[in-house]
Structure formats: structure tokens, C-alpha cells
């Protein structure tokens, strides 16, 4: 036990006293994710939404007065300019050059034509309104969408036989809590799994394959320390560091999500979960990190160098990503108790259950205990690897 603590202390000291390691493993992942996601969110917003004070200029040809008075004039920030037929080509060129936002060309005698149009008469062609715009200019795209929506509204008033969910009543009966649960249960298990694994990848290969590569692990192996003590000490210390790294990435993501998803995240709040949910989540996180670190440690002990370890870990990374994504699709088998014995997949499913308020305590307990059991087995394997001269001293 004393030797385990000595190894844990050494691993912590090695990590926390190295400002480069702390910066690259604990601070930068969270900070970079926050900055990148926030930047992406702001970028996407500016890509699809024009400035609030922007005045859209829409050129119209032959617009019926009735339509103008009742619909188009109601639009704020829109200026409609009537043009003659010989100006149409020039305006189209200006739209192409991103000088003008939009051009709406109505067919001749539009109102009379639509009033006399009968869709049941065979061969009758509906009057066609042409709207020219440039999809690569945000303002032009936005003006186009507004005009199309306006004309759709106008069209629906002409042949309105029935409405669906008209009026201001709330027809979606899902509570805000359920909506939050659904969103989080799809998104967070995947993010947590990937971030935890990335945290493990950042520390375990360096600590095990790195020590092997540099010859420092051999110095430890000639001391009286038991191989199992060395394996346990390393795995526990690395698990804590990996968990901190995962938390850093997770915080960066959670804090930047409102910016990334904008209005679709409005009203969502992680305070919908209670203490019990968080405790179950903590248990799953700890046991999952243990199993991930153990797996990566075994691969790292097998590898001859940090570089080789990183390459060998890649297939495992893909498996973890698939397991994380599975929380989005595997809801039909979530009640099957046996899936909670499958390492990594069980963590993803159990987290999904917690986030969607459908957690089954038995499934969570099976997940945590099976993960701990697998980790113990992996520690035994790692200790045997530390004892194998073929693995530890292969050149």
C-alpha cells in the first residue's frame, strides 16, 4: 500500500510540477474547445443571420398593389423598389455581383391570373413568381427566405380549407425538463466518453510507454516494489489526471454550447438533475476512466515508444467514439440488463439513461461494478506485462 502511494505521489509530482504538461493537458483542452466552439457559434450565426439594422433592398417588377399593401409593406427593414422590364437583366447582374439583395418578378396580371387559375383543369399551368437571389450573400439569402415565406402565407390564405395547430396554444406537451433530458442524453454521453478518452490518451502513453522508452521503468523494476503495486499506483494516479483533463474539456464544451447551438439551447439548464443523478454519473465517470486508463496502459506497456503507443491506441479511440455515439441510437436495447456488462458501451448507455431521467439503479450499479472488475483484471494483466522481460525489454 505504501509503495502504491509512493508511485501515485511521484506521478502527481511529475505531472503537476511540469507547467507544460498542466498547460497542454488541463488548461488548453478546455480553453481551446471553449474558444473554438464559441467562435464556430458566432461564425455560424453571422453566416445565416444578417445584422439586425440592415435594410434589405428588394427590387420588384409588376407587384400587385393588393399584395404590396397587405403583406410587403408590413415588413420591417425592407425597402421595395419598383422597376421596369428593361431593368430586370441589370438587376440580375447586380445580384450576381452581390450589389443587390433580391429581385421579385411577378407575371403579368398576377392577381387576375391566380383568381382564374383552377388546378383541377388538366394542363393548366400555375402562375409563376420568380425570385432571384444570391445564396452566397447572407443578406440576399435572408431576403429570399422572407419573401418566399410571405408569398407562402399569401398563397395559403387563398385556398385555406383547414389549419393545423392554429392559435397560440402550446401543442407540444413535452416539458422543458424532458426536452433538456432528450438533448443532453443524445449529446453528452458521446462528448463525455470522447473527452475522457482524450484525457487518458494525453497522460497514459507518456507515463508508461515513455518510461519504457527512456529506460526509467527498468530502474523501478530493480527495486523491491511489486509489479502489481506499480500497476495500481500508475493506473490510479493517471486516472485522476485523465479525469481532470476530461473535466476541463467537458467544461469548455458545456460553457460554449449556448453559443454553438444558439436559440435551440434556450431554457436548457443542467440544474434539472438532482444529487442522486450526479452521484450516479460520478460513479460511472470514475469507473469508465479506470477502464480506459487500464486499456491504454496495457497498449502503452506493449508498445516500444510513445509514438507506437499512440498509433496502437487509435483503433480503441474509434471503438470509444462508436460506443459514445451509440447512446443516440441504441435506446431500444437500453432495458436489456446484459448490455451493462459490456465495457464502455455500458457507460454510454447508463449515462444516456441518467441524462434522459430513465436511469435504472440496477443498470448503473452493474455498469460501475463490472467496469471496476474489468479494471482489476486489466491491472493484473498490466502487472504480468511489467514482469515480462519480452515486453519490458524488447528492442
Amino acid at each position, binding site marked *: 500500500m*505504501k*509503495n502504491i502511494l*509512493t508511485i501515485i505521489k*511521484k506521478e502527481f*509530482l*511529475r505531472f503537476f*510540477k*511540469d507547467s507544460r504538461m498542466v498547460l497542454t493537458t488541463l488548461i488548453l483542452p478546455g480553453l481551446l474547445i471553449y474558444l473554438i466552439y464559441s467562435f464556430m457559434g458566432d461564425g455560424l450565426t453571422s453566416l445565416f443571420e444578417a445584422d439586425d439594422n440592415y435594410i434589405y433592398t428588394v427590387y420588384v417588377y409588376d407587384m400587385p398593389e393588393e399584395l404590396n399593401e397587405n403583406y410587403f409593406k408590413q415588413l420591417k427593414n425592407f425597402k421595395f423598389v419598383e422597376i421596369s422590364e428593361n431593368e430586370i437583366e441589370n438587376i440580375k447582374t447586380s445580384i450576381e455581383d452581390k450589389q443587390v439583395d433580391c429581385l421579385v418578378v411577378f407575371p403579368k396580371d398576377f392577381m387576375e391570373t391566380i383568381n382564374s387559375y383552377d388546378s383541377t383543369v388538366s394542363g393548366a399551368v400555375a402562375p409563376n413568381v420568380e425570385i432571384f437571389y444570391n445564396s452566397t450573400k447572407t443578406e440576399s439569402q435572408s431576403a429570399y427566405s422572407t419573401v418566399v415565406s410571405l408569398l407562402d402565407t399569401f398563397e395559403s390564405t387563398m385556398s385555406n380549407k383547414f389549419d393545423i395547430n392554429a392559435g397560440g396554444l402550446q401543442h407540444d406537451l413535452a416539458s422543458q425538463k424532458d426536452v433538456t433530458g432528450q438533448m443532453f442524453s443524445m449529446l453528452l454521453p458521446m462528448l463525455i466518453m470522447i473527452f475522457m478518452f482524450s484525457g487518458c490518451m494525453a497522460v497514459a502513453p507518456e507515463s508508461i510507454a515513455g*518510461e519504457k522508452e*527512456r*529506460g*526509467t521503468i*527498468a*530502474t*523501478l*523494476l*530493480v*527495486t*523491491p*516494489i*511489486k509489479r502489481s503495486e506499480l500497476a495500481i499506483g500508475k493506473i490510479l494516479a493517471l486516472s485522476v489526471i485523465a479525469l481532470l483533463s476530461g473535466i476541463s474539456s467537458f467544461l469548455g464544451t458545456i460553457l460554449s454550447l449556448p453559443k454553438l447551438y444558439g436559440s435551440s439551447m434556450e431554457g436548457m439548464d443542467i440544474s434539472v438533475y438532482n444529487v442522486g443523478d450526479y452521484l450516479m454519473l460520478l460513479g460511472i465517470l470514475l469507473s469508465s476512466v479506470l477502464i480506459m486508463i487500464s486499456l491504454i496502459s496495457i497498449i502503452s506497456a506493449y508498445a516500444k515508444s510513445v509514438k507506437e503507443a499512440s498509433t496502437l491506441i487509435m483503433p480503441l479511440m474509434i471503438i470509444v467514439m462508436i460506443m459514445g455515439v451509440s447512446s443516440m441510437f441504441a435506446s431500444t436495447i437500453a432495458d436489456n440488463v446484459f448490455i451493462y456488462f459490456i465495457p464502455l458501451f455500458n457507460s454510454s448507455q447508463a449515462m444516456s439513461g441518467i441524462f434522459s431521467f430513465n436511469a435504472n439503479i440496477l443498470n448503473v450499479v452493474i455498469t460501475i461494478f463490472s467496469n471496476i472488475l474489468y479494471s482489476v483484471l486489466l491491472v493484473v494483466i498490466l502487472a504480468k506485462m511489467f514482469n515480462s*522481460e519480452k515486453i519490458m*525489454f524488447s*528492442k
Partner: protein
Amino acid sequence: MSEILKVENIKKTFILSAKQQKIEKSNSKYKVAVNGLSFSAYEGEIFGLLGPNGAGKTTTLRILATLIKPDSGDAFIDGLSVSKQSDEVRKKIGFLTSELKLEDFFTPNYLFDFFSELHGVSVEDREKRKEYLFKRFGIDKFAEVKVANMSTGMKQKLSLVISIVHNPNIIIFDEPTNGLDVLTAKTVTDFLKELKEEGKSIIVSTHIFSLVEKICDRVGIIIDGKMAVCDKLNAVTNGRPLEDVFFDIYAAMKSEAGEIL
């Protein structure tokens, strides 16, 4: 004088990778590093394992240090089997070889405390021993310097000190003066003599004849994994320079094996 080390007919074969086969210029996938080696060392003596590069000296010492296991045969340190009681053997020995490295990030002060803890040395004993050894090797002047910033000599001194933090009675040093400048090499040689005076049993491997002549009581000449001769130094040399004796034995062994020198 009681027998502190007994090596009984140990054999060790390595499987060579394609890369190693190229380096060794060998067509065989196997390399017999140690081939039925037997010898004994006695308490309070310095035993020198002398041989050319690739003779099997380091492999033998790695087996004694429990880093690797023999394919057959066994060795006993203070009556403990290196194959079956490796944990117990490691408590009794201090082992130094160039393949054992210290982590660049740490300082001598920290490393001494860390390895003392692993060897179960009490804080009081640790502090006394640290003060003595650091002063003896001049490490006190760079006790807070990270290993990364040390010279080869400083690193070698520190490695030596770290290997004996627990004051072991049996000390196994593989090429202890290899790559050292003359001053550091003398410090190490003098220290080995001091250890002997303290009653420690020391096994050193080397290819430096003068080192064996200077400090060893007993010598074993190992060629191609086999013990060519093993006896008290003066019995082996019989008044002749060790270098001459070695080359005579080497030539005889090679001629016996049908190799032309």
C-alpha cells in the same frame, strides 16, 4: 569465507528481430547470450566478470538483478533463487547498469527520497545516508538540479548513489566506469574499494583490465557466454599481466571453436 553468490549452469537465448540480425550480422534468429555459465562469489570480495563486448556479462548481471530470467539453470544470492524469489532478491541487492535511467524531470534530492521509500528505508536512515553519499560524491552541490540539466558524470554518480540508497550487502555493477572521465572513474573505483572495506560483496562486469587488477579479489573471464576461467586474481594471472592472460585464453577458446583470429 561464505558463498554469497552461486550461479549454476545458467543459459539464456534471445530471439533476434530482423533489425538486430542485421546489426549482429547473423543469419540465425537466435543468439545464445549465456551458455551454461557457473561461478561463485564470496562475502566481502570484489568479483570481476571480465570479457569482450557481447560475451554475456550484462545478460548474466541482468539475470542476477532479476530483470530477466534464465532459460535454464539458476542463480542464488544469499541462498535466494533469482528465478523463484525475485522480490526477496531485489531487497538484498543494489544494481547499476547503463540501461537504468533516471527521470529527467526530477532532482537528486527527490529521487533519493523516492527510491528510499520504495526500498522501505526509514526517514531518519534516509537523511543520514543521503547526507553521507551526497557529500561523498559531491552531489550536494547539484542536489536541486534536474537530471535533464546534468552532465554524464553527474548522472552516473547519481545513478550509483540511487542504486545503493538502501545500503545493500550485495552490489552488482555493470561497467561502472564506462564512459566516465578519469576523475569520476577514480571516484567510483575508490568507492568500490570503500564498500569492500565495509564488508560488502561486489560483483562488477568490465572489459577494462586495469580496473580488475586494481580492485578485484576474484575474476571470471567470460567468452561467448561461457566461463573460460574463474579463480582468485593472482591464481589466474600467476604474476603475468591480466591483459596477456586474457588474450591467451581468448585465442585458445577461439581456436578450440575453430575460429581464426
